[in-house]
């Protein structure tokens, strides 16, 4: 397993946002976490990248415990997190945003190659490279957030609601990009409200309800599941 989360719990003060969740991410796969509002999806993802401390359990990445590390150290291990709401740096240019994603890297030549790679993947970002990031549309900002994460050369990409607030055409484009990135060997954990999209993209899925794992299994199986269809796919 690339990443393994074992029986973790996360508390915000007295609120148990995550009670008992175990998630396994195999190398090269897309794993999705779906569920309603307040089910603990975002919190689970934030625990993976060290944004929130866990109260119980353990998290292993490539066999090493990472659950005691602060967020900025976890990036160095090869996990990049595209946060909910994109969270690009609004007053920095597109290119500065991307280069900030490579903050920990020292291989100047490699950074230039990857920057070119991101620009090839997102031609719109190349056109707007010296534009301030906040002046771009939501879809472009999402692409920037993904590009910034790729610049750290991660082995695992965590994505929180990449489709949020975007027009259907753009959502299609983002979905294609996620598939493409994954096809090139990068493992992905995808948190989504849009369960239909998530189950279409993912190999394996977890359904969270009130901080617990309600269901898990291959994505195509969950798509056929009665409960999932009724509760999350609106069918």
């Amino acid at each position, binding site marked *: 397993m690339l990443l393994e989360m074992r029986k973790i719990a996360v508390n915000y003060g007295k609120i148990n946002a995550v009670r008992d969740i175990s998630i396994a991410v195999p190398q090269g796969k897309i794993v999705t976490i779906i569920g309603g509002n307040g089910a603990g999806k975002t919190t689970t993802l934030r625990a993976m*990248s060290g*944004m929130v401390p866990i109260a119980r359990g353990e998290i292993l990445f490539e066999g090493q415990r990472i659950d005691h590390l*602060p*967020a*900025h*150290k976890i*990036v*160095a291990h090869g996990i*990049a*997190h595209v*946060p909910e709401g994109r*969270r*690009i*740096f*609004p*007053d*920095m240019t597109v290119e*500065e945003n991307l*280069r*900030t*994603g490579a*903050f*920990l890297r020292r291989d100047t030549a490699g950074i230039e190659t990857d920057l070119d790679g991101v620009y090839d993947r997102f031609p719109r970002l190349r056109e707007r490279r010296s534009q301030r990031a906040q002046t771009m549309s939501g879809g472009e900002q999402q692409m920037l957030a993904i590009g*910034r994460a790729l610049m*750290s050369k991660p082995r695992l990409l965590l994505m929180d609601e990449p489709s949020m607030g975007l027009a259907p055409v753009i959502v299609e484009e983002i979905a294609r990009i996620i598939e493409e990135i994954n096809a090139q060997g990068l493992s992905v954990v995808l948190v989504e409200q849009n369960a239909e999209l998530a189950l279409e993209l993912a190999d394996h899925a977890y359904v969270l309800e009130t901080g617990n794992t309600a269901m898990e299994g291959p994505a195509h199986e969950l798509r056929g599941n009665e409960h999932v269809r009724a509760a999350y796919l609106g069918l």
Partner: protein
Amino acid sequence: MMELLAQTGLNAVYAASYISLVAVGLVLIFGVMGVVNFAHGELFMAGAYAIVALYADMHLPFFIAVPIGMLFVGLLGLVMEWGLFRPLKDNPLGGLVASIGFLMILQSLAVMGFGVRMEHIPPVTQEVVRFTDKVGLPVARLYVIVAAVVLLGALWYFLKRTRFGWALRASAQDPEAAALQGISITQTARIAMFIGAALAGVAGALTAPLVSVNPHMGHSVIVTAFIVIIVGGVGSLEGAIVASVVYAFVHTFVTTFWDGVLADIVGLMLMLVVLIVKPTGLFGSADRA
């Protein structure tokens, strides 16, 4: 009349120089750490007393005393980051209150070490760059102007062109997203605090021979700096520099042609007008305010 205008303009450029050094440091600290450093005026004062100790009392050459003073105040900034702002990082109001406490400690230390009397500092140079008979710029003031241009230029280069400069700006714009890029917020806070304090320190050190050095000299400086950063737009470094120039010109011209008390009033009026017309300040954006 032309000569008086030109002379007053030169005086204003001098005032703009040290005000912007102080204000930019204050903005940098606020931007990266989210805390209002009330002790910033006392860091300016500490820089001036470094010159009293090193240059006036120990007779070190002025241009050796100034960098030592700058470094000393920068280290004071690191002490504040470590002792006050880091333990209180989830409590910006606590940080503000702690900085007021620190301000009083610095003032008391200055009183204990040097007394409450105004310090006499021998002039660094009596030379004046003469443009005409009546228009001239004392070289000691020229030093302040040159230092401000060089240091603010260096800061701009650092912020826009270097890896750690980006890290600083990223932390100021979104600390959580910055951490996700591998940036240590503790480290950027430390850098911001060191630079911000050192800029206030060097402003105090360079102006020490030109102003009356006393333990409470930081007060008027911090009031001016607050006006300037509000006019410029809280969180905007460019705004702080532009507002420093605007404020210095208005204040110096009103002082020269009318009087100093009126100049203070006009300065505050300037702030009110800007806040009414553009509540986020000249360069501020709504989401930062």
